């Protein structure tokens, strides 16, 4: 059709189409690989080449030096769902002896009316984690901290195994007919609160979450308030602090009474 060869810079169709396409590609590359990354101060880029590498997706070793150090002790227990689920008899026996000194508050059978936690039937991993956190200072309590300070790792494992071996005993306020509050069954999605039951039983149990049935309402309420106020902070990744801060005082009362009435 046309006399001029198509693939020639003198053909206006060739020069215009290749030129425009290349110009758009180059401009898009400059904007996407250089300008936009440099416009983001959070990326902390050292220069143009760094910006290009970052925007092109070159794998980079993240700098460890800038990690923010916490100004308080955090829990050093690594929870897994298999943890301490296979107790041995020797450990339980040793734990029974060691638990004599716990009985004054937690009761000879792991249950008491002193508004301290009922430990009978509690998951071993939970009891172990709390003892360990008291020992390291991640959780602080005037009564418990001195007790835990002198316990060895084996002592804590044994006491935890013993209490998980004891049968659960319902509290004096047992009322299985009490309807579950909404926060327990469905949570509050708009406030980013998962249902309590999705970790603490009822719906599912997640590693490290204590069994709450039959716990003292006073104790549950005090702990939720401590999480909300930030005076208790041994929960991993602020799981409970984030929830407790979003809960209303009424909801805290409701869940405390509800869990106390459960078996």
């Amino acid at each position, binding site marked *: 059709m*046309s006399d001029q060869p*198509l693939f020639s810079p003198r053909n206006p169709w060739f020069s215009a189409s290749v030129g425009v396409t290349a110009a758009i590609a180059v401009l898009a590359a400059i904007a996407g690989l250089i300008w936009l990354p440099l416009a983001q101060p959070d990326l902390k880029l050292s220069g143009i080449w760094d910006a*290009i590498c*970052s925007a092109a*997706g070159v794998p980079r070793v993240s700098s460890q030096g800038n990690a923010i150090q916490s100004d308080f002790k955090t829990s050093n227990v690594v929870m897994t769902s298999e943890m301490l689920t296979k107790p041995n008899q020797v450990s339980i026996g040793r734990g029974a002896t060691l638990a004599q000194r716990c009985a004054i508050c937690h009761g000879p059978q792991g249950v008491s009316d002193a508004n301290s936690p009922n430990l009978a039937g509690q998951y071993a991993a939970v009891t172990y984690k709390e003892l360990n956190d008291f020992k390291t200072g991640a959780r602080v309590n005037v009564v418990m901290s001195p007790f835990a300070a002198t316990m060895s790792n084996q002592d804590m494992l044994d006491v935890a195994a013993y209490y998980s071996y004891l049968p659960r005993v319902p509290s004096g306020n047992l009322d299985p007919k009490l309807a579950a509050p909404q926060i327990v069954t469905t949570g509050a999605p708009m406030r980013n609160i998962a249902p309590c039951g999705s970790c603490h039983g009822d719906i599912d149990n997640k590693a490290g979450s204590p069994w709450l049935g039959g716990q003292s309402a006073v104790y549950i309420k005090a702990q939720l308030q401590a999480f909300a106020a930030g005076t208790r902070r041994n929960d991993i990744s602020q799981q409970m602090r984030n929830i407790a801060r979003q809960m209303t005082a009424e909801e805290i009362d409701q869940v405390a009474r509800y869990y106390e009435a459960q078996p």
Partner: protein
Amino acid sequence: MLINKRLISAHFWLAFIVFGVALVLGAWQMFVRSPLNAWHFNPEFYYRSVTAHGSAMGYVFPTLVAMGFGYAITESALEKPLVGRRWAWAGFFLVAVGAVVAMIPVSVGLASVLYTFYPPMIGNPFYYIGVVMVVVGSWIWVALMSINMAIWKRENPDKPVPLAMFANVAGSYLWGWTAVGAALEIIFQILPVALGLKSTIDAGLARVFFSWTLHAIVYFWLMPTYIAYYTIFPRAIGGRLYSDAMARISFILFVVVAMPIGVHHLFADPQVGAGFKFMHSVFTGLVALPTLLTVFTICASAEIASRLRGGRGAFGWVRALPWQNPIMLATALSLVMLGFGGAGGLINMSYQLDASVHNTQWITGHFHLIFGGAIVIMYFAIAYDLWPHLTGRALESFGLMRAQLWLWFIGMIVTTFPWHYVGILGMPRRMAFYDYANPAISPQAFSVAMSAVGGFILLISGVLFLIVLVRGQWAASSEAGAYRFSVPLHMPARIPAAMNSFGLWLALMIGLTVVNYGYPIAQLMVLKETNVPAVYVGASR
């Protein structure tokens, strides 16, 4: 002049049978996951059905329509018999057998991986082999379209390639190149794992390869629709095409920029750098250009037809259009759906706006509105227009056709608008079950029920469509004459070589692919740490 009518009819009939089956599955899926259905089925059946629906509607149905329509265009626009008739039949049988080979493992639950494959999920190898057969069958068509155009150009060195053929070949080249991404993914990544030769797969790389195919495949589906806009619509309403050059430029733009943009499907994926995501976003924005050109040209062509019929005034001419004509109606309804779908598409391609709709039902609503709505309604129009020429019998049920087209439009709007809405509310896609009793989800129940109703309206419309075609097979014989395409307002006597050939545009398409995909693919291929264990679907648990 249609010579190989049996070949063309076979493609269209198989396409519409597959469409009918997949439509039933689609309506069932809408129903079972809506609050209209009590929860009493195995969710595995839902994923089986989604895989079958997606594979049939995404790979088999539009491919067969494009192939059949392509053969019809070759013979009627070039006015000579198709070269390579035996190869064309071979391609048809590859697609047909491939569809069956793929659907057997899906229907027995061995390949519920959805039509986008989703590695590291791995299904039965025969599912992938079937899909490859479909693609290879369609590549035969790609080659035949190219060969037929080349032969015609050699025989007619001084004439421009007819617009319909030019556009048809543009569509075939686009498909030929864009299918390469998924083919690489299946052949080099998925099949070795599915056959048990490897047990790990680079899921990120696989998704990048699939994005190469996944976006431009939509433009391949769109091609028959745009060809119908430009070359059937103006003739069918008694007008002329406003501009032949504008049409060619639109199709050329599709060839060049429709393909290297797929990474906008991976905005939420970590394996591609943000800079490349931005570049793909820019080119995705450019694809709006040929669509805007098309909408302008088609509206101008409609205005020409209307003024020829006596239409007056700035807007009064709209009323004078032949609204009784099914092609007029289908095109208008298609453009409305294209408008809404296109606006949604601009939201999806924006990096920030996408974040709020990514992987929600908004996306499912979007592609059903564009593909199921704007595109498929023109497939109906193509069938209505072409049928009398294939069967030698007139289609006379115009009332039924209009009812069918209206029902399809209404059904698609009722289905997809609530679908978009629940997506904004945060409803995720690809899930068999939603607990509507949950207070966080219950506000979505009404909208989901509404879109299920839309699904049934679409099913009724689909049944009506098949009734019209079947009635056409038994109507009285009547000679429909030669099949012709629209004549442009000004017939170009000479056009530049660039607008009459594809070499330059294919070079730009491949060049842009290298620029936009080269580094992300090369990097993932080099990194060995990106492999993950395969998850075999349908294996005994």
